[in-house]
């Protein structure tokens, strides 16, 4: 073995992955004698074979030093590489955005229901109802249209809290310029208005928009803001609820395909419970008043003629506090209306043993009584015109055509206390009774 080969054994490190070059002693050329030089083949950092220069020198102290040079050109960045990177990044971001949208489901029903609101043609709704679950379980919009020709939508989410009212109002007015806005007053009793889950059920169901950002910056507590503004941070972990998320995506696709939602955010549970008399307080909290004032101030400046605040009836017996009267005064002073329907149970014709699916929600039987009652009330009180464009009427005629089927289905299920969970549009249209599926 001659000296050169012995030296190249040093380049054995080159043969292992990971070494591109060794340090070249700076006094190499000056003080040392070069014993041998040459080329040999070894693997570079990515494992490809290449030519390398190497050599052996003997320093003045007769100590053996070896050196190798890299001797190869790494692939320098060219335009085509930049393009590759850009396209890769674009596709990746696209996939992540899609995933983000798909997984951003705080509550299935709300996600679909609010999506449906945004699909409604602009300025086609006469009435928008804003509030929590009262709005979408008590009032069945297609039924109101069938009986009175009124177009309406419940822009409502489960346990919607008061701070959201002002922004829901702005969305409703901007998109629909309705003739009447209806708010329910129960939300003002809630103690923790900025409850994260309640906020998410509404805010995360909104499409990304200027108003959503404004609402977040206004309402959401500081430490949560970033996960609202960048929901992926929170929802990426919803991957294990992918089934639900895909269901929601499908529901949205159905609405998009048809052009509008059929059941307009109506939801109900098919069961009934017997009357149980429980008492609770009706007390407007400090925060409640704060957000009521914000809402009233906004409404005074906004482009809306009629606003009605409603106290909905339910099974509870309420111990009403003074704050309640104060709230009513505030509303009236602002020039808006209030009606208490808690005492109108008999007028509405509600059967306490058949019409509720739980303490505070009417079922299909109750909804069928409440809807005409309430529609009649507001149409008499306000001069609501039911003139619509032909397209709007066509849409609503179509929606109303499903009423019989849906009601029959739900009455059947409710009679048999099918119960279980909250039924929505995709559940209503299945074939439960055997008279053929409503399509």
């Amino acid at each position: 073995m001659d000296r050169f080969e012995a030296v190249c054994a040093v380049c054995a490190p080159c043969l292992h992955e990971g070494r591109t070059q060794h340090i070249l002693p700076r006094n190499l050329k000056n003080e040392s004698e070069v014993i041998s030089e040459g080329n040999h083949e070894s693997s570079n950092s990515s494992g490809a074979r290449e030519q390398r220069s190497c050599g052996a020198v003997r320093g003045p102290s007769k100590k053996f030093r070896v050196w190798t040079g890299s001797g190869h050109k790494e692939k320098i960045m060219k335009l085509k590489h930049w393009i590759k990177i850009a396209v890769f990044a674009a596709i990746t971001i696209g996939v992540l955005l899609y995933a983000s949208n798909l997984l951003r489901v705080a509550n299935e029903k709300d996600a679909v229901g609010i999506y449906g609101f945004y699909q409604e043609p602009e300025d086609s709704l006469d009435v928008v109802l804003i509030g929590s679950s009262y709005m979408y379980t008590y009032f069945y919009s297609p039924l109101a249209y069938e009986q009175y020709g009124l177009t309406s939508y419940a822009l409502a989410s489960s346990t919607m809290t008061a701070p959201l009212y002002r922004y829901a109002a702005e969305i409703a007015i901007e998109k629909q310029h309705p003739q009447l806005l209806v708010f329910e007053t129960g939300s003002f009793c809630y103690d923790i208005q900025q409850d994260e889950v309640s906020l998410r059920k509404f805010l995360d169901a909104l499409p990304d928009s200027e108003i959503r950002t404004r609402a977040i910056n206004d309402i959401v507590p500081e430490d949560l803001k970033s996960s609202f503004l960048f929901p992926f941070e929170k929802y990426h972990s919803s991957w294990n609820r992918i089934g639900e998320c895909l269901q929601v995506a499908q529901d949205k696709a159905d609405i998009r395909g048809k052009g509008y939602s059929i059941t307009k955010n109506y939801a109900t549970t098919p069961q009934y419970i017997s009357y149980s008399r429980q008492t609770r307080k009706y007390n407007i909290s400090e925060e409640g008043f704060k957000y009521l004032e914000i809402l009233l101030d906004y409404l005074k400046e906004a482009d809306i003629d009629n606003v009605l605040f409603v106290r909905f009836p339910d099974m509870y017996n309420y111990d009403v506090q003074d704050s309640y009267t104060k709230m009513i005064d505030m509303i009236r002073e602002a020039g808006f209306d209030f009606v208490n329907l808690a005492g109108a149970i008999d007028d509405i014709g509600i059967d306490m043993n058949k019409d509720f699916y739980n303490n505070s929600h009417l079922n299909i039987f109750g909804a069928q009584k409440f809807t005409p009652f309430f529609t009649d009330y507001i149409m008499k009180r306000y001069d609501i015109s039911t003139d619509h464009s032909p397209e709007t009427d066509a849409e609503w005629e179509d929606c109303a055509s499903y009423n019989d089927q849906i009601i029959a289905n739900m009455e059947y299920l409710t009679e048999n206390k099918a119960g279980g969970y909250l039924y929505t549009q995709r559940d209503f249209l299945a074939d439960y009774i055997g008279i053929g599926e409503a399509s």
Partner: protein
Amino acid sequence: MQEFIEKLKKLKKGVDFEHETALFDNGLLDSFDVIQIIAMLDDDYDITVPPSQIMPVNFNSAQAMWDMMKRLEDE
């Protein structure tokens, strides 16, 4: 040199010291073996191997070890 290889063979059985050129890199010699070789160099050849010389390059083949010995003797 041949004598040296015989000693190596006695030290570590079953290794082809005549032809192998990647003794250390291929794991045929481990650190304990290197220590014993150094002990042998100290005992039999009176050569002190400083720790700075304990590198794969110096132990990968019998020839490399021999070269190292020659260098250390010269100093």
